[in-house]
């Protein structure tokens, strides 16, 4: 089933099309929801709210972005409700923002260990890190989605990288 067929089917309230769409995006969205909230129950709530809104508002999808990007934007908005007020995120010491994760990420660290370190980051730093480094959003997009300044987004990302780098270094020393 093509994306446009899926959209048309969901718009008509077709249960099969809704299920296919859910199956196509459920893992990616649930994974992102878990990384943003740091809790499986919260991730489940966010996922359900997201898809209910997707099916309700699918007629408003203008295909300016891909369907996946549209769903992801809804999910981030839903996840934001689980956060503390992002505007209150504390500004962290900035590292050079162009410091790429690949430059300091050791191949020796396993993906699951890296995931654990990511999940230990404070909410603001974790959220910005996930959206920018993992999902590929720009600071301006993240700032708009979360309702924070670009400066806040940059400082949170810097702090996340600094914290991760330190944590990974510590785990190597052990």
């Amino acid at each position, binding site marked *: 089933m093509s994306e446009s067929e899926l959209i048309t089917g969901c718009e008509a309230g077709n249960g099969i099309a809704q299920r296919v769409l859910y199956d196509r995006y459920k893992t990616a969205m649930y994974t992102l929801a878990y990384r943003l909230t740091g809790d499986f129950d919260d991730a489940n709530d966010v996922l359900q709210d997201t898809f209910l809104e997707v099916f309700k508002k699918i007629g408003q999808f203008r295909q300016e972005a891909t369907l996946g990007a549209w769903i992801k934007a809804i999910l981030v908005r839903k996840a934001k409700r689980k956060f503390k007020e992002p505007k209150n995120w504390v500004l962290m010491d900035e590292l050079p923002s162009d410091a790429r*994760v*690949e430059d300091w990420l050791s191949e020796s660290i396993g993906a699951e260990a890296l995931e654990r370190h990511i999940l230990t980051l404070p909410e603001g730093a974790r959220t910005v890190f996930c959206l920018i480094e993992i999902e590929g959003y720009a600071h301006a997009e993240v700032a708009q989605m979360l309702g924070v300044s670009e400066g806040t987004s940059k400082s949170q990302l810097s702090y996340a990288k600094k914290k991760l780098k330190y944590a990974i270094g510590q785990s190597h020393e052990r």
Partner: protein
Amino acid sequence: MKDNPENKQPKWAQNLPQYTPPASSWEVIESELRRTKSVRFEPRAWWLAAASVALVVLVVGVFGWWTTQQTNTEKITYSEEKLTKPLTINASQSLESQSAQIEAYCIKRADVCQKPEFKNLKQQLDQLNAAHQELKTVIETYNPDPNLVAQFVQIDSDRTDVLRKIFEEI
């Protein structure tokens, strides 16, 4: 993210663990969708229903207005008039018989005879009739004095005049 067609993730991030939501998650979504579907009236359906109601109201309103206009412009009224045979002066009739005819008419059409103008004329006629009768008796009893005869003719002339006016009133 293998199942996301828009995958902008760097290589290192693609190795991170993926999580699958519990099966119950879809069940919750599906039951909620079914529930809202049963109670939700599609916006398009709302629009159509509202448009239909508006159309019916418009048609009924226009029809009502048109009917009212038709009634106003082509008003048909019915009335019933009781016709009585009109009185006519017959030249060959004597003044007495004409007076008797008016008396008979007044019995049938009291409403006409109660009019002040009519009553006034009728009163004049009665006085003239009485004078006519008295003078007639005098002339028959005594020799016909030319003055009396002239007076008698004048009275009859007046009676004729009053009778004519009465018939005009009728």
